[in-house]
């Protein structure tokens, strides 16, 4: 329906930065959280008198608590290196989607209230009062950032716009101006345990359904256990894996891997969510609250190790923050890193010869791989830097015969965000999502034309869902997007263990 009105931007003559179109995305306004969603998270329901001062106070508070914010706000020299690096700028041409311009929305207020030059000569240094107009700009443009960190890779100092976006969103939440999509979801996790609001019995049902599907298809009784005490592995996976297409095929893949490895595992209905949306809101408090659910379950079930499913920002929180927010995990088996990524697990099994894969099962496919932004630039897999690039590719290559990489300028740490991360995977931002996918779609088109690529594998529930939705706008089939572990699952020779 929306497709009739909304059109994808035309491909560029790669890779020229497009000219500015001022105000091109100023109408983009994601739904505001209702008072009930706000209050569930102990934030004010709506803007109240005096919010200006409270916003400035909150900024002051964050400056004391976060070195990155303080140094980033001081150090930018406006060199322009980042200006053509954001997928949203490339797709929308709105100058406020240039990373430095996005930072400046907050930096201007920082200068006004927290620097001598901004207090004395605001006009000279681009300092602005905290007004409703400024706040509206914050709301619009800090919800046009997926916190993907691509700009940070190219900044001579490593200034990370994601940190500034998170700070701005944290401030807005604290004065009663939250985003409906993220905040409603965080509330659901606190109450029910996952983003989708899928209660325990429904989860058991879903997993039983998967067992039947796999049995029908393969004749092998692969288990998909829920809340099993004493299992070796607690699997924490994004709730989209439980039934959304295509992530669910990834979950089936994990199940087959566990089955074949002969390692007992379980998901938990209480901590049935890997994605920690509090990251998007920039709230350490809420992140902790979600993360400790995992610790609690791991202790209760007496598992030996924790493994995370395919999910981008989730892996960032898991890899980089879980030890801080819910550690120490000294009660787990010290032989394994905490947490582990499902790809590390599968990679290890492949290397040990414990999995038998027949890549010819995927001979109908030519596969490329999309590096998820937060896996690529905010985490690692394996023991060496860059393992987050090699391990997924090695696993995919073990499962398929035809693999090709996209343009090197668009993969590894230079990967483009799918356009739907950071709490923007909501229908009210559809225009932004379609436009933001432009650079990734351009790179995909290149390998489709040159190598006949038929599938793009991803390791993040958001990437998968986003691509399924936007691929058709670029005249690709929505089923081009596939889970890395679906490829593995399809190639596994079940039951043929030596």
């Amino acid at each position: 329906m929306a497709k009739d009105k909304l059109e994808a931007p035309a491909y560029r003559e790669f890779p020229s930065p497009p000219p500015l179109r001022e105000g091109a995305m100023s109408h983009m306004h994601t739904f505001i959280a209702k008072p009930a969603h706000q209050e569930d998270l102990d934030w004010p329901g709506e803007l109240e008198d005096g919010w200006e001062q409270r916003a400035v106070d909150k900024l002051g508070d964050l400056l004391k608590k976060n070195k990155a914010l303080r140094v980033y706000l001081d150090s930018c020299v406006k060199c322009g290196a980042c200006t053509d690096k954001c997928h949203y700028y490339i797709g929308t041409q709105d100058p406020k989607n240039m990373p430095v311009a996005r930072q400046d929305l907050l930096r201007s207020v920082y200068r006004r209230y927290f620097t001598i030059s901004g207090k004395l000569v605001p006009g000279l240094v681009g300092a602005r009062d905290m007004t409703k107009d400024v706040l509206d700009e914050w709301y619009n443009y800090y919800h046009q950032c997926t916190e993907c960190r691509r700009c940070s890779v190219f900044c001579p100092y490593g200034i990370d716009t994601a940190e500034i976006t998170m700070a701005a969103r944290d401030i807005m939440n604290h004065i009663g101006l939250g985003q409906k999509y993220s905040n409603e979801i965080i509330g659901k996790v606190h109450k029910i345990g996952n983003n989708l609001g899928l209660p325990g019995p429904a989860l058991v049902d879903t997993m039983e359904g998967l067992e039947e599907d796999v049995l029908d298809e393969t004749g092998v009784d692969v288990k998909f256990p829920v809340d099993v005490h004493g299992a070796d592995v607690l699997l924490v996976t994004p709730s989209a894996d439980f039934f959304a297409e295509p992530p669910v095929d990834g979950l089936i893949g994990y199940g087959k891997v566990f089955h074949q490895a002969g390692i007992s595992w379980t998901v938990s209905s209480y901590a049935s969510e890997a994605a920690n949306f509090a990251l998007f809101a920039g709230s350490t408090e809420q992140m902790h609250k979600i993360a400790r659910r995992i610790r609690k379950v791991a202790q209760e079930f007496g598992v030996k190790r924790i493994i995370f499913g395919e999910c981008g920002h989730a892996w960032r929180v898991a890899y980089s923050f879980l030890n801080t927010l819910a550690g120490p995990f000294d009660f787990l088996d010290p032989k394994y890193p905490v947490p582990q990524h499902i790809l590390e697990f599968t990679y290890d099994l492949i290397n040990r010869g414990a999995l038998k894969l027949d890549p010819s099962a995927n001979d109908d496919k030519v596969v490329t791989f999309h590096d998820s932004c937060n896996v690529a630039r905010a985490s690692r897999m394996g023991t060496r830097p860059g393992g987050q690039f090699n391990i997924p590719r090695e696993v995919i290559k073990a499962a398929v015969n035809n693999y090709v990489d996209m343009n090197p300028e668009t993969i590894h740490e230079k990967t483009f965000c799918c356009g739907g991360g950071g709490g923007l995977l909501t229908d009210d931002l559809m225009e932004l999502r379609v436009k933001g996918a432009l650079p990734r779609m351009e790179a995909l088109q290149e390998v489709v034309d040159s190598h006949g690529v038929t599938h793009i594998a991803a390791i993040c529930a958001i990437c998968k869902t986003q691509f399924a939705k936007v691929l058709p706008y670029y005249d690709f089939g929505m089923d081009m997007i596939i889970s890395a572990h679906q490829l593995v699952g399809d190639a596994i020779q079940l039951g043929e263990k030596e």
Partner: protein
Amino acid sequence: MASTAVGMLFAIGFYAAALILVLGLVWKIARYIITPAPLKIPVTPAPVTWAGVPVRLGQEILFFASLFKSNKWIWIFAVLFHAALLLVVLRHLRYFIEPVWFWVALAQPFGIYAGFAMVLGLLGLWGRRFLVDRVKYISSPSDHLMLALLVMIGLSGLLMKFVSRTDIIQVKTFFLGLLKLDIQALPTDPLLLAHLTLVLILLIVFPFSKLLHAPGIVFMPSRYQVDNAREKRHIVRWVAKMMKQMDADDTAAKQAADQA
């Protein structure tokens, strides 16, 4: 022609500027140091041990490695300017030391021509602020003024060297005196006084401007942090306190609910 009054005026200026520069930087850097980094946020791939961090930062500081990946034009102009500035500053050391160290004497010819490179680099960077629509959009008046200030410092210096010379011996006498709190006369050539005044302004605005990128570059958690979150628990005081408080509140709330 040299004037004791002018010498006195500039001596006060330099003492004040030096004080502002040092106190301002100490204040800023102290805050960078004491402000905690609550979470592990290195941009990956990152070094997995501390030993790799100086290598990573060194590449950024010495070669502008990320900028090279990012934009070759900015990189050329930025390297030209910064490398030239370094040589120019080294060359100027000769006015503050007696006898002149061997390597400072060696740097003299390079330092002189670096003055041209410095101005060229600055003009390149400044030109982008007019010619590239994206950079034009993000430039505020202070960005132009900063470049104007640096260009004028460079130009006034070059003019003194190649067009209208000042009594450099007396200038050196002034600065050597300044270091020993023995205030000497200063030549009154307009070019010299303009040059020195502009430098005074530069020293004063340093700690209050984007020139803070110079110390800032080593305090960027995205670049100096080690990628070892799984191996070593990273925890700062306010986060530990916050978590403890939240957990205690929840336990209390749960007990109250159970009793009710």
